[in-house]
């Protein structure tokens, strides 16, 4: 029986990790090693699957439903981590299934919970890591759209958080609040940046030059070029850069 429409599910085949398993409708697990896994249950009733004798060790559990306190405590005794909340705060179970088999599952949002007392949104990510975003970070857009913290949900299959009519991308949230994500994103950007600035930076690195090694051009100006704030320098500046790098001006963009 097909329980989820997962067109590409690389984890279902074989015994290799990570391994995705649908136990029954609305209950699934993603094993990342023989000692560590993630379970998702779509309702409190489904947690009946977990019995007192079970040993889940370092497994974590997400229940996309509200749990009463005793049940939450029971599950906390079985799992290393338990996350739960009202259903509208989470993606649908089908979307969670698709998020868990995505290569970038830890960067997707599965849920978003609001703490009114702390004036923060707690974003539950694909690996159940939580990222806390203060309300103050959600600044109104230039069109005047402001966030509504009474109407919070995950949208675009985990790529964004919706607050009323306002949407914030997960990329922006993680870039701001997750140092590791930011380091990876910056590295990716520099490796794949096809702009003049990206080419210049790659070539400069290859030559082992610092920004202060370009006579007649300030460190600050070179930084602006690398960040793409100056699309392409002209004339004498371009010639100075090329001469220092030992290439023809037109060759810089080939690096």
């Amino acid at each position, binding site marked *: 029986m097909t329980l989820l429409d997962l067109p590409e599910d690389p984890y279902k085949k074989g015994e290799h990790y990570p391994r995705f398993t649908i136990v029954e409708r609305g209950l699934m697990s993603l094993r990342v090693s023989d000692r560590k896994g993630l379970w998702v249950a779509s309702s409190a009733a489904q947690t009946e699957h977990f019995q007192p004798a079970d040993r889940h060790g370092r497994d974590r559990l997400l229940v996309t439903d509200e749990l009463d306190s005793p049940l939450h405590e029971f599950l906390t005794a079985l799992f290393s981590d338990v996350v739960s909340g009202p259903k509208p705060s989470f993606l649908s179970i089908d979307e969670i299934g698709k998020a868990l088999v995505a290569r*970038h599952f830890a960067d997707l949002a599965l849920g978003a919970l609001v703490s009114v007392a702390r004036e923060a949104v707690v974003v539950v990510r694909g690996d159940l890591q939580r990222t806390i975003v203060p309300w103050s970070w959600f600044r109104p857009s230039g069109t005047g759209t402001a966030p509504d913290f009474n109407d919070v949900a995950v949208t*675009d299959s*985990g790529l964004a958080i919706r607050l009323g009519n306002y*949407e*914030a991308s997960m990329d922006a949230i993680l870039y701001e609040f997750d140092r590791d994500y930011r380091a990876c994103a910056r590295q990716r950007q520099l490796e794949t940046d096809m702009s003049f600035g990206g080419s210049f930076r790659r070539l400069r690195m290859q030559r082992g030059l610092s920004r202060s090694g370009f006579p007649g051009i300030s460190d600050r100006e070179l930084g602006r070029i690398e960040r793409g704030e100056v*699309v392409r320098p*002209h004339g004498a500046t371009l010639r100075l850069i090329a001469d220092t790098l030992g290439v023809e001006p037109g060759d810089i963009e080939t690096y």
Partner: protein
Amino acid sequence: MPLHLPLPERLSHEGWKVKIYDNERLEPPCATVIRGNLEWRWNLRSRQFMDREPDPRDVPRELREFVQVEHTKLVRLWDLTRPGNPVAITEDWP
């Protein structure tokens, strides 16, 4: 409200979207091409996809060409939402 670039019906029907979110990284200015839980960031200054993963070649040619054709509209949408950081930057080199 995020700004949407209206797409040809066939692309919309296949689940493709192009958005500028209310809140996303300011630099460099970009629009986001979305399908399911995959996204491709389109650099509004360089007119190129910014990331190698996911592979930009997975975006249908029709959509890539559409984004190029509608580039001016996307820039206008960005500038509308980010008046303090417009796509065009004045050259301040000697």
